[in-house]
């Protein structure tokens, strides 16, 4: 098989992995070597589905002994199968890197023979890159669940980021769809990696040249929409992963049906992209905005509002906390205002040291007034002509399209009312909105 077919098969098999970030570590090439890494990460291209292409994302092999029902590479799927030799892969990576096509390598794999053997093959490719090519670019390696901890330690010493995929957000789903994997096989390595990273960074405080272990941390991925797990469960799991294992990122991947199976959504089912988007929005709120999962969702409201982003939704349900005055409010209070993000808050804090801010100034600082104006005051004043009723705010916060959809379902002004002798029991508009915003 020639290089083209191999690349095509092993890329096609890897594309459902979401992570393609190259952030979290900064370094320059050592003498005689090639490659560097930027802490912010660099995207080298964007595929036609709008996802960033930063790393050469391939599998070592798409041969797999497991039979996970959601996976395109499962044993029972009839596919052309192939394997990269470690040297082929290293050479390809080097040549792509040299032409500035990529920021580094993302290496995952099906399970060839057994997890340990697969890890050894991956390890050899990484070793050739790091030692023979003296490659200092970014490497993201996937850990095969069930691999020996010695092997994990050696991969962590060569890679910048390592990850173990959770894939299915509950033990039940796992038992049903991935009978060869167990919760322990996934969380075990995660805990091991976490303690190793902690140890290594503690050592490096004492000895500057102590060995690095996965300097860009670890991440994981979950499939959304393949199982009946709710947003609330997923978000809670996410939060506990950030807290317990100090993950750098949790990725969500809307399930693309790849097989006909009674346990899974039917082929041709649209991926739940909006749900995935809402989860990412909530993920950002957890990591950068000081929100907790409990504030965004609870047992009564287990899924996100499709019409409003989680932050607006939260703010509309907590109108008693608003408006806040931009010239006085603290960093954390400002962060909670819809339409104001981390960058805008930092700019506001800087700019208000020299002059009092008005609405025009806020626009210059990059605040999205379309959303923020309902929740802030400048020097005690609200924006001109602002009427802050739930209805007006809700209308303004919905995009035109969402508003049209919303109106279609719940028309705001029903056709001119006919006089009637009997009062019809009206399902009040307000009730509908309360349902939508989750405040009952």
């Amino acid at each position: 098989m020639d290089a083209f077919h191999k690349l095509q098969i092993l890329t096609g098999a890897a594309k459902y992995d979401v992570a393609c970030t190259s952030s979290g570590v900064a370094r320059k090439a050592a003498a005689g070597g090639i490659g560097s890494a930027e802490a912010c990460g660099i995207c080298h291209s964007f595929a036609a589905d709008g996802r960033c292409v930063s790393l050469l994302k391939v599998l070592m092999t798409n041969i797999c002994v497991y039979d996970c029902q959601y996976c395109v590479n499962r044993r029972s799927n009839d596919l052309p199968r192939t394997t990269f030799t470690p040297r082929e892969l290293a050479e390809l990576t080097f040549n792509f890197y040299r032409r500035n096509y990529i920021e580094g390598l993302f290496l995952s794999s099906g399970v060839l023979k057994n997890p340990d053997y697969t890890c050894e093959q991956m390890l050899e490719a990484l070793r050739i890159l790091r030692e023979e090519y003296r490659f200092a670019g970014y490497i993201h390696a996937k850990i095969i669940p069930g691999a020996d901890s010695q092997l994990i330690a050696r991969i962590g010493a060569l890679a910048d980021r390592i990850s173990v995929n959770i894939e299915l957000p509950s033990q039940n789903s796992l038992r049903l769809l991935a009978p060869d994997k167990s919760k322990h096989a996934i969380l075990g390595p995660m805990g091991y990696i976490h303690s190793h990273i902690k140890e290594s960074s503690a050592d490096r405080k004492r000895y500057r040249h102590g060995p690095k272990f996965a300097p860009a941390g670890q991440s994981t991925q979950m499939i959304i929409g393949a199982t009946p797990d709710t947003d609330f469960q997923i978000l809670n799991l996410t939060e506990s992963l950030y807290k317990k294992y100090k993950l750098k990122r949790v990725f969500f991947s809307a399930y693309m049906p790849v097989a006909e199976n009674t346990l899974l959504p039917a082929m041709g089912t649209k991926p739940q992209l909006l749900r995935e988007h809402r989860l990412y929005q909530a993920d950002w709120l957890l990591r950068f905005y000081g929100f907790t999962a409990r504030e965004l969702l609870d047992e009564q409201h287990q899924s996100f509002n499709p019409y409003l982003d989680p932050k607006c939704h939260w703010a509309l349900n907590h109108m008693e906390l608003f408006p806040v005055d931009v010239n006085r409010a603290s960093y954390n209070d400002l962060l909670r205002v819809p339409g104001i993000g981390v960058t805008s808050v930092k700019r506001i804090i800087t700019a208000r040291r020299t002059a009092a801010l008005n609405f025009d100034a806020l626009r210059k600082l990059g605040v999205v007034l379309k959303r923020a104006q309902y929740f802030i005051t400048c020097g005690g004043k609200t924006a001109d002509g602002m009427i802050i009723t739930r209805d007006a705010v809700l209308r303004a916060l919905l995009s035109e399209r969402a508003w049209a959809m919303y109106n279609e379902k719940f028309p705001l002004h029903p056709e001119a009312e006919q006089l009637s002798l009997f009062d019809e029991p009206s399902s009040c508009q307000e009730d509908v909105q309360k349902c939508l915003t989750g405040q009952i």
Partner: protein
Amino acid sequence: MLNRPNMIYLYDGSFNGLLCCVFESYDQKEMPVEILAPDIPQATLFPVKEIMTDPQKANRVLVSIPKKMGHEALDFVRQAFLTCLPQKELHILRFMRMGYCHGPSVMAMLANDTVHILFKAVKHLKNESHLLKGFLRFSVFNNVLVGEIEPKNCVLPLLRQHFCRRYPEERFLIFDKTHGMALAYHPYQSAIIAVEDLVLPEPDQKEQSFRELWRLFYETIEVKGRHNPRCRMSHMPKRYWKHLTELNRPQESLITPIY
């Protein structure tokens, strides 16, 4: 008081030249209505004053900036000079006048119009240079890496450190077509030189095959069920596509898809 408000300054287009304009503006207590570089001819009725570049004057201004308004402001002014902002010279002069007046806090006056315009321009410059760190494509000719870009801003000085650190053992050339400049590097020296035009030879077999492999990877990595060309366009505007290997296909393709 600023007298003679209708003056136009003509400078040589260099950063030192601009610093001399600042010097002149303070020396003569006047505020020009326009500062022009020689390559932008403009018929005008206003009196034109040609500002000669004097390294001593320029240095006096240069030294004063970190003293009066901080190192951050100096970096900022240097970067503002690289942007494609129309009338950037005048905006820089206004900013520096503010800086001499208010001191280091000028960098915090983000809501001020003068500062805001320059901040926006510098942000554009930095964004573009960050994008080009990824979107630049090298081709290998005779073991030399050659890449071409068409940025709006003058980004080469900002790309210099990144690429020199990344490829310390390579020889490479990055040609900026818009500004007729190139960043040339061979171990371990780099220079930004003026280059009129660059004609590249036909790529050899090996180069073509790597380009083809990259195109194949790029096409395969897309998840077809999530096709979203608008999202791609907003992350990677079309003006960059011209120089991207993966979006420019030669006539006949070497490979047919197998599934």
